[in-house]
């Protein structure tokens, strides 16, 4: 079956058990609290960068919530990620203003430069490329954000140079 989980373990082979200590700490804070699943998932994602399979399974075991349900929640909300994310997160705007000023070409230039499609992460885990509907900087259209930096009035030609600064 198609699995979203190419990467089996969250610790990159450094021994799972010790790496679960962070998770156990997070869950300890919420012990017995009702409706704690989403905050636990959020904090776990902060700690691990994404929600690896063994983290989800352990949350299920410790919080007595079926894994299927946790997976359902984690796939429902756009904020949760089930695959490792890049060191740098690129959010390229596809809103109306950016669209009319050539956002498609910017996205294409990013995809060509990074050699990944929108929504994916580069194999070296340096960049994750995401599209967003609007980042509220229409005056700078077409625009993208890399982490917390805003880059406006983009042209396809300038994209590789900007990416180069983060590589």
């Amino acid at each position: 079956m198609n699995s979203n989980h190419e990467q089996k373990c969250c610790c990159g082979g450094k021994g799972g058990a010790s790496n679960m200590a962070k998770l156990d700490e997070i869950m300890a804070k919420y012990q017995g609290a009702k409706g704690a699943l989403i905050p636990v998932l959020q904090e776990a994602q902060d700690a691990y960068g994404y929600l690896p399979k063994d983290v989800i399974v352990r949350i299920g075991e410790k919080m007595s919530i079926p894994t299927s349900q946790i997976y359902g929640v984690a796939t429902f909300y756009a904020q949760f990620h089930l695959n490792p994310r890049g060191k740098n997160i690129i959010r390229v705007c596809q809103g109306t203003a950016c669209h009319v000023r050539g956002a498609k070409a910017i996205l294409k230039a990013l995809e060509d430069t990074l050699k990944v499609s929108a929504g994916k992460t580069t194999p070296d885990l340096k960049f994750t490329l995401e599209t967003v509907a609007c980042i509220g900087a229409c005056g700078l259209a077409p625009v993208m954000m890399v982490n917390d930096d805003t880059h406006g009035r983009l042209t396809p030609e300038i994209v590789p140079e900007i990416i180069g600064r983060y590589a």
Partner: protein
Amino acid sequence: MDMVNITIDGQKVQVPKTATVLEAALSVGIKVPTLCYHPELRPEGACRVCLVEVEGARSLVASCVYPVNEGMVVRTNTAAVREARQMVVELLLANHPPDCLSCQRNLNCELQSIASDLGIREIRFDGERKDLPLDANNPSLVRDQNKCILCGHCIRACSERQGVHVYSFVNRGFNTTVAPAFMTGLDEAPCTYCGQCATVCPTGAIVEKDDTDEVWKAISDPKKHVVVQTAPAVRVALGEALGMGPGSVVTGKMVAALRRLGFDKVFDTDFTADLTILEEGTEFIERLTKGGKLPMITSCSPGWVNFIELMYPDLLDHLSTAKSPQQMFGALVKTYYAEKQGIDPKDIVSVSIMPCTAKKAEAVRPEMKSSGYQDVDYVLTTRELGRMIREAGLSFDKLPAEEFDAPLGISTGAGVIFGATGGVMEAALRTVAEVVTGKELGCLDFKEVRGLTGIKEAVVPVGDLKVKVAVAHTLQNARTMLDKIRAGEADYHFIEVMACPGGCIGGGGQPLPVCKETRQARVDAIYECDQCMSMRKSHDNPAVKELYDSWLGKPLGEKSHKLLHTHYHAQHREG
């Protein structure tokens, strides 16, 4: 109970305060169409097919979740209601695969029936189609999520009824689908293969794996000797798949049909049900008198065996080591029967007709090869047999009643009641009581263990002993029982567990649709079969006696141990 008065389509009706508009409508015989509603599951209000008009409400309401209140005026059949329902169904059909004619659920599909009932003659929208891969990597069930209408029945049946929680809604919006955690197939999820999801699926999104082609092939191979066994619960449900009412006992017609399909010998799983009682009953007496692990729990239901192996592996030594009747039968056909008939076991094809989807998985367990071959080659569900009978063009209702072949078709009433919850327990008690006391029982009916109550308990005097027994059906009730054992609060001696509601008669492979009333009718039919048998105790079965005398030796003997007993192991499937 507090009642309220409401008006539905001009009819004044008094209903409990806690009722929904849908329940109120059903109580006065108004059939509101539903898809996501299921009378035995928590309501969800997801599909919007059950829309009705409520005076004063701002829009049409989903009657399955809308509570009644005093003086409410409801209209279920206005132009606006009809139009809205049609729209809802049309939108569902707009992205549903248009392959009804070749779908396994053709003519037995709730979506199809509703489209027909609502008079949908054209689909005005051409929706986007999903293209999700088929989940068919397990022996029991096939899931085609492209046919899923997101009613959530399977999710709720698996969680509420079975306590297994395999499924959840995954993703969002148009991309929503139903899947196990991590989008795996059922083979990688903690699925017991009980098939209850398939019994509640309104479309062809979850169906049994169809093995009829393989069986047809075996039948038409002149070099093969094809024998068939039929489980107790099949004879009281097969009629439903062929146009008869629930609770019809069709044993004789079923035997006749199987002969006409071309099986060389038609045998009865009831025979090995009797044998199971002798092995399991003896095992129980041994554990009871020699200090073995108690409570002992039955092991006939393969969905249940998968459940305990997956979820409670620490309690596996409570399970009886006796194989299920299907597997005892399989082991004997390719040894005892082959020897007696002088047939090379490699030329025997052993088929079983079961009310169960998990039996398909049981047959291919690696340890089920005691004869040196796969003991049971193919398992067909009651539904598949129904389809074969239709395919062969047999007029089922006109078939004469025929008898099973000897010797593996000879059985007692104790064998047939295996099909209903409490039946294995009752059959065991009939034998255990007589074997332990050496005295004949006056009354053979152990009514405390009968019926559709989720967990039943009884204390049965056996000689000087007071044997405390319990019976659980559905895996949620099994879970309750196992938690009690883990907590050390279960002082029972013997527990029967069946994975499905009502026992095998409510199995995942039984004809659809099924509801509480249908299950009750099947249970009644099972006890009717028992009453009609001349012998009602397993240890009276002359063919079983002959088997022990001439070939097996004694219960729990060396040959029994090799052929009729098995072992269990923890299964690890994350999710």
